[in-house]
């Protein structure tokens, strides 16, 4: 589907707090000391500013990810891989029943530009929404100095395998990534590699846990190895996933260390379906008909296996594929 180009409009600066207000299509975005207000033609949603910024920088970095990203139960995005829906109340029965839901489709590049513009203006120095809450300052209060440096990081994906010649490098002291405080009790050694001459780029291994333990971001997967369209992502998780992810395909979680508690909801209605506690070594599918949100009581390591086959989302949406991974005949 092609859509017209829409550019974010700067509506000017709040004279008291210093933050700019923006219009993007039918959506208006403004923030104050504590909250963000997203306004659309039929309503307004108020979101706590930390939650909003944590969600928005990740949505940018993930490239709008696979499927739906709910900033809260009302506002979010749906990725159509080229275009992106911004929605408000579309997946909330109460909003639909009241007739105040709203959805508008934009080019992905326009949404990215809009979100980056908002984040750049609204993120002050000393606050880093990609870090765990215990590791960063507060987003509250009036505008001070804009944070410099990249809004997003940690999204440099491996093309075959992290660390191979010409591919992305694992984190290290020299890349400015010390071992995180939460994993200071672990020891990280290197694999013993003996490659015959000429096979140095094929006989290869690296310490994956060391790479994860050095992450300075949370809920922010990095691609580490790819088998055809199967993508292995790893991430360090602490506190809460600041979005609710609605799946447009099946994905799989492998808990490497510690534990994460997942709330599971129906994808379309948001109705609670239950709760999953994953501990080290646990494996669990996230079916294509749910939303999920994770809570990690302490920093943990999570592996996610995604199927990046193009067009998969349409096959699930049409019902061509069942919304769960193991069909009945395989049990």
């Amino acid at each position: 589907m092609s859509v017209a180009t829409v550019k974010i409009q700067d509506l000017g600066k709040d004279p008291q707090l210093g933050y700019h207000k923006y219009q993007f299509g039918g959506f208006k975005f403004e923030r104050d000391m504590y909250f963000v207000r997203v306004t659309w033609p039929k309503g307004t949603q108020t979101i706590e500013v930390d939650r909003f910024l944590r969600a928005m920088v990740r949505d940018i970095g993930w490239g709008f990810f696979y499927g739906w990203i709910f900033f809260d139960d009302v506002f979010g995005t749906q990725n159509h891989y080229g275009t992106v829906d911004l929605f408000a109340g579309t997946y909330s029965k109460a909003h639909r029943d009241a007739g105040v839901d709203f959805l508008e489709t934009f080019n992905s590049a326009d949404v990215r530009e809009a979100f980056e513009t908002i984040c750049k203006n609204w993120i002050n120095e000393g606050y880093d929404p990609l870090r765990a809450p215990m590791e960063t300052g507060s987003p509250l209060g009036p505008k001070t100095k804009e944070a410099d440096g990249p809004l997003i990081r940690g999204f440099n994906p491996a093309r075959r395998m992290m660390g191979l010649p010409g591919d992305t490098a694992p984190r290290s002291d020299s890349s400015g990534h010390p071992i995180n405080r939460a994993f200071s009790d672990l020891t990280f050694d290197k694999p013993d590699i003996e490659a015959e001459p000429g096979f140095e780029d094929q006989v290869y291994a690296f310490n994956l846990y060391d790479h994860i333990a050095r992450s300075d971001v949370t809920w922010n997967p990095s691609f580490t190895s790819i088998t055809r369209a199967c993508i292995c992502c790893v991430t360090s998780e602490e506190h809460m996933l600041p979005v609710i992810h609605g799946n447009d395909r099946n994905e799989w979680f492998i808990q490497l260390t510690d534990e994460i508690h997942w709330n599971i909801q129906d994808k379309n209605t948001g109705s609670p379906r239950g709760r999953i506690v994953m501990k080290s070594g646990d494996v669990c599918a996230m079916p294509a008909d749910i939303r999920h949100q994770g809570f990690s009581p302490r920093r943990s390591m999570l592996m996610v296996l995604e199927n990046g086959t193009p067009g998969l989302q349409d096959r699930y949406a049409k019902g061509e594929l069942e919304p769960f991974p193991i069909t009945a005949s395989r049990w």
Partner: protein
Amino acid sequence: MSVKTHVGSLASYDKGSIKVNDDLRHYAFSNIFEVANNSKPYERVMVVSNLEYCAEVVRAEGTSPWYVAPHDEFAIVMDGEIEFTFYQVGDDQKPTHKAGAARLNGEPTGKRMGRVRARRGHEVLLPAGSAYQLSAAKPSVAIIQTSAGPESVERWSEICVLK
């Protein structure tokens, strides 16, 4: 404050829980160490399945057969120490199957490529079209990112939480 990272192992793991108002089979909740504890050496038991792709749990103990796959695979050691030995395959040993690992017909007849000794947390490349063999002096565990293939074992009803 002292920190304590919890990492499961064959000898000690604490399985989580699943309580959902849904068919539990849709979530296929299992535990790598439990699967490995109940597997024969070098059974490649699927714990992840995503259309043609999968991840297999391998209990490494003693020496494995030789395997080859037509695409890259990746092994992550979850417990213990595993040695991976790599050879090129002869022209008559090149994989003819579409996906996943298959046993090599005999010993590899190509050049020796090298070996990797990997421990917990290490990820090892199992390069497309190369023969590889695993060996472990003590029971160890790896999970392999791959495609479903001739060596893949499915026993979901046995490994998954169903009530």
